[in-house]
């Protein structure tokens, strides 16, 4: 964090779908080895922005550099150093998880042991299962496993915890923190503010394709408090989620 080397730099990014301007001049940097959160309401342009950085969508204008590579000139180089979890994606039909990981290993040109990848997301017991036969949370975990195959410098997670139970969510946070501690930069979107607060070093709030705030969660909260904001109700020492965790334990669920 001290060095603050920008590994991703987005300048004046604009994306138009026909007449509709989904992204209106976004600029931000993601620093090396941080967990960067993109927050904002549905349709704000988070997925659009991520997929442009991931070289999956064409931008209308602007400049994006990822680890020294330009999305216009070196998309192939970018693809080799990033891991991508899409908000919506499918996997090759009729294959089990091990075979899917083998396929991705081939596509990335990476030499890995499929079982080790599955162990990282606690899916070793499902090694022979088809992707279709997984629960929603297991699918998310599998998607994250596929982002790690090429030992990427940066991973992009688009709503990785949507649909997960509280344990799975917390365990995924641990996994994401472990990935970051291993030297990977993480860019994540989420609609859970507690998650962003726990996980992210910095967050950008996006609304209607524009950044309306960008700072560390702490600073943003302090700013709000300093402006005289107060919660309506005194907060209890625990919330319903704590009850859930307390009742059902901390382990991953099948």
């Amino acid at each position, binding site marked *: 964090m001290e060095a603050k080397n920008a590994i991703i730099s987005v300048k004046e990014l604009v994306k138009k779908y026909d007449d509709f301007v989904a992204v209106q001049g976004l600029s931000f940097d993601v620093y090396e080895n941080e967990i960067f959160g993109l927050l904002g309401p549905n349709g704000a342009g988070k997925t659009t922005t991520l997929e442009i950085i*991931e*070289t*999956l969508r064409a931008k209308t204008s602007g400049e994006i550099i990822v*680890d020294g590579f330009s999305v216009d000139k070196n998309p*192939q*180089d970018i*693809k*080799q*150093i*990033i891991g*991508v979890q*899409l908000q*919506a*994606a*499918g*996997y*090759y*039909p*009729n*294959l089990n998880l091990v*075979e*899917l990981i*083998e*396929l*991705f*290993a*081939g*596509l*990335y*040109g*990476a*030499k890995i042991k499929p079982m080790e990848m599955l162990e990282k997301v606690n899916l070793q017991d499902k090694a022979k299962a088809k992707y279709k036969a997984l629960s929603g949370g297991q699918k998310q975990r599998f998607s994250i496993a*596929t982002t790690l195959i*090429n*030992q990427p*410098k940066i991973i992009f997670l688009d709503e990785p915890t949507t649909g997960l139970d509280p344990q799975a969510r917390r365990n995924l946070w641990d996994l994401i923190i472990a990935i970051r501690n291993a030297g990977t930069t993480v860019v994540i979107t989420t609609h859970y503010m507690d998650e962003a607060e726990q996980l992210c070093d910095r967050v950008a709030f996006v609304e209607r394709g524009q950044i309306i705030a960008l700072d560390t969660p702490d600073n943003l909260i302090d700013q709000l408090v300093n402006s005289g904001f107060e919660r309506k109700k005194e907060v209890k020492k625990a919330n319903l989620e704590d009850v859930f965790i307390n009742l059902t334990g901390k382990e991953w669920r099948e």
Partner: protein
Amino acid sequence: MNDGNSSSPLGTGGYSNTTATLALAKASFRSIMRSPSAVVFTLAFPLIFILVFGFLGGGGTRIDVGVKPGSDINNPVIAMLSKTGMIRLVMDKSQADFDKLLEKGNVDAMIDVHKKVNSVAYSVNVVYTSASRDKGGILKSVLNNVFYDKTLKPTVAEIKESTITGREYKTIDFILPGQLGFSLLSTGVFGTAFVFLSLRQTLVIKRFFATPVKRSSIVIGEAIARIGFALIGALFIILIGHFFFGFTLVHGALTVLNMLILGTMGIIVFMGFGFIISGIAKTESMVPPISNIVTLPQFLLSGTFFSIEAFPSWLQPISRALPLTYLNDAMRKVAFEGSGLWDVKFQIMILLIWGIVIYAIAVKVFKWE
């Protein structure tokens, strides 16, 4: 196949497109082998037809051919006709009787053989009947394919010569190449159309695009798997036909190899149709109807079950425009007449032209997302 990706920032060495292509081929092959519809279309359907015709046909379709009163009967032409095992010669009837039988289709054709004046050659006159067009057509192709011998050449300048004589032409010899062609057609068209449409719609391809894989690797990988699968199916069909139903393979393994090479050309052309369909179909349920527009006419009109000679003359130009017609034709020549690939260069050329046209369209209408 390596290009542009040699500078891996991870220092793990260059990125290999070949590895990616083969990984995809392997995945696709596994997936095809587990997909019931692929197995049914490629193997079960053709085998069922072969079983049905194999048992029904036994020694072959029977064609009753009347021998015109007064015709010479002690000549090599008649001898060879009776040797085919497929043709029953009907003799000892009056011309008036034959006229009636022909009219009703109770005999399928009438033949008249005469020694040419001042010549050792014979002149052969065949009268077909519209009451039995299909069998007449088979007879015609039997005559063409099997019967005319080099020694008879001067007499039949108007009919194409053939190098094979007197070999028993069984139903299986006609049916199997047709079924093989149909198997390749349906695997190529349906399989390719479904897989690319569904990979696109279920966002599998989108996820692929987030990896360094090239588009060409995706197409080639899929093609390798599908061609491999279709050829294994073809080999299986040929071997079952040969060992259980006496399918004729004139030069044994070499003939099989030639058939597989032809099969590869066929499936590549047919996959082109599949690419086009995957581009124009909006949903998976649109794939079967559009595919049927491509496969049904070829299934019916390309000589899968009947020689196209059996069709009314206005239909024949349509038959002769279809690629499967030429694949079937080439397969039969190779398998039964023992032709080499060079002998069927005309058929191969037509397939090639179809290939060029189809892929020119496919490149235009194929969609990645």
